[in-house]
Each structure stands twice: as C-alpha cells, then as structure tokens.
C-alpha cells in the first residue's frame, strides 16, 4: 500500500475559527498543544482511559440483575473528536496497540473511540531528554503516524501533512480552511531529517538489535541480572501508566448499595499481585522478574504476536521513574553480552 500524503497550509487564526465551528457542530476539540514540551502524559488515556465503565447494573432481588443498557451500542458509543497537538510517538503508539484491541474479539471501547477521532500530531523540533524514538520508529512510518501532522510554517501559520481522507470527511466544508500546497513536502522532509540527525540527548548511543536482545533475555531468564538492574524499582507502575503503549488492564466491579459498574482499569506488570494465582503461587515473585516481563513483552513478545515493538522511544519511563530505573542504561550495561548473542 502506498500512502500518498497531501500537504496544506492553514493560518493559526483559521485553525481557531475551524475549532470554533466544529465545537458548534457538536464535535469535541481536544487541544494538547498547550502542553508544549510537557511530555509527561500521552494521549493514550483518551482512547484507553485509566478507568472506564464497561457495564452498568442494578441488583434487584436475590442477585437478579438488570444489566444496562440493553443496547450494546450505547455502552461503546464514542463522540467525534479532533485531537490537536499529540506527539508523533504517541500517535504512532496508537497504531502499535490498535491490534490488541482490534483483533480477535473487538474491544469496541478502544476501537470506536479511535474510529471517531482524528489525531493531529505536531512534529517535534528536537529530541528531548531521554527520547529515543529515532531508534525505534521506522523513518518511513514517522510522518505517517497520525492522521494529520502539523509543523510551524511561520509565526502565523502551520504547514500540514494529511495522511488520509479522514479529516476531509470529519471537517466537511470546514476543510476548506486548509489551502493545498504540495511544495510543503520539502519542509517536512527537511525537519524530519534534522530531527533524525540531531544529537541524541543523554548520550543515548546504543540500542540493541532486537533478535539479540530477545536471545539475551531468554538466555538469562532466571539469572540475577534483572534483579540487579531493577534493584531500585519500588513497583509504583509510573513507567507503565505513563507509557503510551502499555495496555494491560484489570476488570473491577464498583458497587454502591444496589447499583454498580464494571470497570476496565489500568493495571501493571510492575505490581506483585498482577500474576498472583488463586493458589498463592506467583510466577513473578520478584521485581526483577516483573522487569524482565516488561522488557520481554515490549521487545520480543509483542514483536512475535503483532510484528511491532511495544515501545515508541518516548522516554517517559526513564524521565518519570522516581527511582531512576532506566532501561537504556540496562541495555548499555549488558551491551557486550547482547552484542555477542
């Protein structure tokens, strides 16, 4: 499939007008661009919220339940949204996790939201502290990551790359605010080139070959290296909650008297209870084993199952860990062994 992008220019004031028009039409505009370089949150939660109702019920007599609403559509219904200002890596992460929810029995809660949402990302100007997306996201996928990609043309206007027709369908006549100008392709190419060639922050010089990393983890499966590497980890799950590709969840009931909800809540492989069996047996008793799972899932299991790495190199797990656990440092430390695999 060849993806042919088209390019547009839009003034910042026209964009504001467009947003106002859209709101009037009842569409939701979510502007993340104000966050600027605040990279602490990804847009994951807009598709896969930290807690989400999947059922609502009323307990009548003797546990006889009324499960509401009767119509499946109502529970999974999503509103039309336009997300402006996502990070490219986070938009790409939506593509990465899409198959988990979309393949097999379809999780309409995620998929309906994705289908009703246009994601517009803003190209990053430079790599930030601990970013390593260039090591992970294929160059060819980079500017295709979102439905629309914006980059500043000048003080007053944006250059826009549109990767599909979804925005035209979404905005209708409103799309006329975008003025086609395919010469802008060059600007995008130049900016990407610059980003990819820019200095890596914090001397992130080494990223292992995936095959070798997989072999390394499997070979050292029961060794002490994972415990050593995650010695400081307090199992707080900040790394997984802030990760745009982490998608593990729990299913939990919340009841008040006779009314209640069943909810899908974020969960984390960093928690000791995550895999605890009813018998008391826990296959992952130590934090090191949980970290091993995190690495294995991201760089090997996910690749085997969905042919993508479940990491986009956003660097959040490194930036936000309160204990200074850093997976790039782990790789660096194991470099010689990994490269010998």
């Amino acid at each position, binding site marked *: 499939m060849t993806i042919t992008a088209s390019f547009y220019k839009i003034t910042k004031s026209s964009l504001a007008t467009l947003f106002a028009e859209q709101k009037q039409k009842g569409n939701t505009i979510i502007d993340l661009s104000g966050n600027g370089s605040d990279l602490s949150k990804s847009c994951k939660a807009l598709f896969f919220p930290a807690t989400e109702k*999947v*059922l609502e*019920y009323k*307990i009548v007599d*003797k*546990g*006889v*339940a009324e*499960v509401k609403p009767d119509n*499946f*559509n109502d*529970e*999974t219904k999503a509103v039309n949204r336009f997300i402006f200002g996502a990070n490219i890596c986070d938009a790409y992460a939506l593509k990465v996790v899409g198959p*988990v*929810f979309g393949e*097999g*029995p*379809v*999780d*309409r809660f995620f998929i*309906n939201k994705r289908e009703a949402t246009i994601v517009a990302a803003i190209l990053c100007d430079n790599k930030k502290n601990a970013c390593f997306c260039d090591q992970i996201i294929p160059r060819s996928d980079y500017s295709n990551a979102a439905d629309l990609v914006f980059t500043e043309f000048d003080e007053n206007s944006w250059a826009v790359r549109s990767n599909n027709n979804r925005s035209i369908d979404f905005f209708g006549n409103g799309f006329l605010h975008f003025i086609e100008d395919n010469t802008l392709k060059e600007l995008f190419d130049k900016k990407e080139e610059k980003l990819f060639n820019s200095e890596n922050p914090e001397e992130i010089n080494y990223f292992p070959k995936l095959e070798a990393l997989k072999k390394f983890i*499997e070979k050292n*499966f*029961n060794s002490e290296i994972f415990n050593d590497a995650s010695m400081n980890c307090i199992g707080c799950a900040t790394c997984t909650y802030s990760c745009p590709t982490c*998608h*593990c*969840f*729990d*299913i*939990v*009931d919340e*009841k008040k008297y006779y009314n*209640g909800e*069943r909810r*899908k809540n974020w*969960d984390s*492989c960093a928690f000791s209870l*995550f*895999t*605890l*069996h*009813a*018998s008391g*047996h826990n*296959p*992952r008793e130590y934090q090191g*084993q949980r970290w091993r*799972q995190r690495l*294995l*899932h991201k760089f*090997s*299991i996910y690749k*085997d*199952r969905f042919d993508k790495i479940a990491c986009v190199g956003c660097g959040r797990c490194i930036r936000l860990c309160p204990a200074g656990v850093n997976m790039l440092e782990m790789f660096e430390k194991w470099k010689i062994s990994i490269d010998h695999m």
Partner: protein
Amino acid sequence: MENIYRPYVMEVIKRKEEAPMVVTLRLKFKEKKDEERFSFQTGQFAEYGLLGEGECTFCLASSPTQFARDKYIECTFRIVGKVTSALGRLDVGETIGVRAPYGAHFPIESWKGKKIIFATGGIALPPIRSVIWNLLDRKNEFGQISIIYGAKTVADLVYKDEIKQWEDMSGVTMISTVDPGGETPGWQGKIGYFPTIMKEHLAKIVADGGNIDDIIFVICGPPVVIKITLDILDSFKVNNDAIFTTLENRMKCGFGKCGRCNVGEVYVCKDGPVFTATQIKQMLPDF
C-alpha cells in the same frame, strides 16, 4: 455492535458442596436466545462473575455432551478470595454472569481408538472431568480409560459420587489416592501422591507387557506438580505430543487483551489453556 465484556446472565439451578470450601454450581441460561447460540468444546474456560463483586476464571467443568442434552453447564471452584466467596454463597435461583467459551480445547477427535490415562489431583479434576464425561458419552469411540486422582485427604476428593460411578463402570479404571496421613480408617483407595501412583500404574502396565506408546495422557495440577509428572512420563519415554495438560494462569479478560496470562510469547487464554507437553517444554519458565 458487541460489548465483549457483557456476560450471559445465567441462573443457579443446583449448588453442591463437593469438599470443604469447594463448590459446584449448575447453571442455566436465562435467555433462550443465549442458550441457542452457545456451544463449547471440552477444555475451554469461562469468566464467572457476580455483579458488584467481580469476575473469576474457571474451566467449564461439565461436558459439552451434557450441555447438548440437558442445556446446563457446571463450574467447580475453591473458595479462596472475595469473588469466589461471593460465588460460593450463591443459592439456587440466584443469578450469575458468565462470559464464555474462551481458549483452546482438548483435541479429543484425534484420540479416537486410543487408551487414555488421566492423572490429576485436588481441585484440578474439574477441567479433566469435562473431558472424562465427554469421552464416556462416546465410549465406543475410545479405548480403556484410567483415572488416577488424588487429594490431600479423603474429605478433599471432589465429585465423590462420580468417582463411585467411574469405579463401577466397565472400560474405566478408577484409582483414587490420598496423601499420606489423609486417609480415614475405612479408606479403600491408595495412599500416596498422584504422580507416584501414576508411576506405579505405568510400571505395572510395562511389567504386564503393555504398550505405553499408544496411550494419551491428560495431566493437570499446579505448576510444580505438572513438572514432576512430566519428568515421570519422560522416564517412561512417553511421546510428548501424546501428553496434554491445561494451565491455570491468572486471567482476567479471557481473550488476549488484558496482558496478564502470558508465559513468554504464549498467551494462556488464547493459545491455551490446553497444551501438549511438547509446547510446555518450549515455553519460557515463567509459570
């Protein structure tokens, strides 16, 4: 469009205490249309839930042939936590939510004409019981069936009535055993752990000039016990493709999304819970 988290609403039509803290519930669909579209195969599992309490994973402990005949399913579970306690308190006439069927099944069609040995212990009999009845309902298609079943004490044996039925059935060898110290004065069965008893049984087959090669083995138990049992079968050089087991990892969603049941790249809820010994041995040691 379907909400995959929405359960079938079922009604408890029978409750039985099998052993201390072990309960069997017999369940019937509330809605005719659900009953009509439901079917499953032996070895598959379900998420049983109580609104307000949560969901729990157990196998479908009754046979698909039974469902075809009587339109009910059964589950058997040990009361250990919040949800199982609530499920254990359910009475006849009360409602339960069930999401099912999930996972892979035992490939019994490929066992036709073969002898089958079941070896299991304690609360691991329920998944095996589904297979046993499935085969017994089509008895002329399969060879001799041997069931080696152990529990800590005599009281802990589940399905006591069915064990009696199996003892009396032609074509079935039923060997019950209890752990040393778990016997009662009148205990007629064996004393010893079930893997040991299975070992004795196999040794006897060999001593009698029997052939182990065309036997299918179905074993089930906690991870450590599975490992021990596999070692014993290895010592008899049993073909690993003829050994089946079912893993009981912690699960939530049942369909490969919530991310907690994996053993390396294997998702127990989707790729299993039924695996051959060959598959088990290829897995990373993470269960």
